[in-house]
């Protein structure tokens, strides 16, 4: 027994958020406003993702929380503990065992299935924000499908760096309609957004926006004909599991220039390690 309502939020709030989620799923990529609540954590620590997770959790769910792919970082640990305490749901670090995964800045390497929900924490939901600061104008641009500006951003990248230098939060077009910010996942993860069997939900707490990708949605990364999109990663293999096709973190090991590259997805790395060791 706990002093909290199941998953912290009261039922009316969850109802309000679920309505927003249903609308978001009905209009893939469209940012649905919602009345974000004060949560017992600061903005920027995943208040949007936590509210979405709280609204979709059932007592039977098994929750996984990752931050930059890792289950053992402060943000991931504290959110997992938050739901263990307020919802008393089972938790796991195994991607394959989880029914709900809340993530910050990564999509797990292990392919997701139809019985899973991926919840993204989103700092800035508006992909047009940095070029057009007026919210009234960006909303109109979405409504009228005026997305030339998004390509201006990519144009600027190429003009400045010789290639599209945007490496994370790389803009995508959803189901041929809305341009969406996939949250600050590395562009390496962008292909995983498309045609994904799992439900993908995006929550921005401070900005009070929710958007979603229903299963098997077509998601295309924006690019130019002569500068096509590339899902890039560090040109190394993981120093622990030897994987050559997972996204890698660079770890500086000493102050003499020593470094190593490790899978950012800790569960993926450990699973491979165990299988290799077994």
């Amino acid at each position, binding site marked *: 027994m706990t002093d909290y309502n199941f998953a912290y939020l009261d039922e009316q709030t969850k109802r309000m958020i679920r309505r927003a989620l249903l609308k978001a799923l009905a209009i893939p990529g469209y940012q649905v406003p919602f009345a974000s609540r004060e949560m017992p954590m600061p903005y920027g620590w995943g208040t949007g993702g936590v509210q979405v997770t709280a609204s979709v959790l059932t007592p039977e769910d098994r929750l996984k929380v990752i931050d930059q792919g890792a289950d053992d970082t402060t943000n991931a640990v504290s959110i997992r503990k938050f739901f263990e305490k307020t919802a008393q749901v089972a938790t796991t670090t195994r991607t394959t065992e989880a029914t709900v995964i809340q993530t910050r800045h990564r999509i797990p390497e292990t392919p997701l299935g139809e019985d899973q929900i991926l919840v993204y924490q989103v700092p800035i939901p508006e992909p047009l924000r940095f*070029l057009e600061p007026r919210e009234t104008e960006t909303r109109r641009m979405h409504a*009228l499908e*005026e997305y*030339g500006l998004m390509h*201006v951003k990519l*144009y600027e990248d*190429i003009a400045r760096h010789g290639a599209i230098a945007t490496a994370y939060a790389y803009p995508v077009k959803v189901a041929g309609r809305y341009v969406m910010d996939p949250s600050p996942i590395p562009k390496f993860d962008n292909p995983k957004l498309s045609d994904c069997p799992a439900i993908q939900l995006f929550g921005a707490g401070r900005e009070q926006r929710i958007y979603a990708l229903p299963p098997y949605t077509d998601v295309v990364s924006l690019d130019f*004909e002569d*500068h096509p999109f590339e899902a890039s990663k560090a040109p190394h293999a993981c120093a622990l599991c030897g994987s050559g096709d997972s996204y890698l973190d660079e770890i500086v090991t000493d102050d003499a220039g020593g470094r190593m590259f490790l899978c950012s997805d800790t569960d993926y790395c450990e699973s491979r390690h165990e299988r290799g060791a077994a």
Partner: protein
Amino acid sequence: MTPLLSVKTLRKTYGAHVGCTDVSFDLFPGEVMGIVGESGSGKTTLLNCLAGHLTPDRGQVIFDTRADGPRDVLAMSEPERRMLGRTDWAFVHQHARDGLRMNVSAGGNVGERLMAVGARHYGAIRAQAADWLGRVEIDAGRIDDRPTTFSGGMQQRLQIARNLVTQPRLVFMDEPTGGLDVSVQARLLDLLRGLVRDLGLSAIVVTHDLAVVRLLAHRLMVMKDGRVVETGLTDQVLDDPQHPYTQLLVSSVLQV
């Protein structure tokens, strides 16, 4: 000959205050019309009504569209009107910073309208941007610089390039030379006159500077208290003004 723009009994009020009223005129392809009057005479209100920035209370603004011939712009849907705004129409603001993206390079500023209508080849967009910078006399070496590093005159020329890259047929200009040094004004006027002639542009130029309209506009409309008090050939209105207000306006200009 079909007018490019035909304005009929346009009226815009702000509560009890009349912004402009009873404005009717035709603008033909290749013509430049000046609108002069003191501040508060309704000329900017009129321009904004024509360009779709303000919704008039009544009247018609009929534009000869490429696809469907003459259509009332005010009866168009917003997407249609905005599409017009970035293809066949252009708007040159008095302050370049209102018409430019100051945090985007010169090339990106010029290329935006191309990308907005579907251009997706970086090399081609850049080549066109470079070509337009040349036409407005900005060194191609500045293509990756931001407008914040440009002088006022350069910013204004960049704004013009950004507007004309999609080959619009009608350009709205709000005090295009306002706030610029006299020598810079002359250069800009010459540039505008050349572009109007070479591209066959039509333009509506709002200004309070009679010297600007004499050099740039074929025809002139004089406004006072929201009404058009006199129209005619620019030199005729300036040299043989009929309305008391126009006579006052013309006689008030300081001679150099």
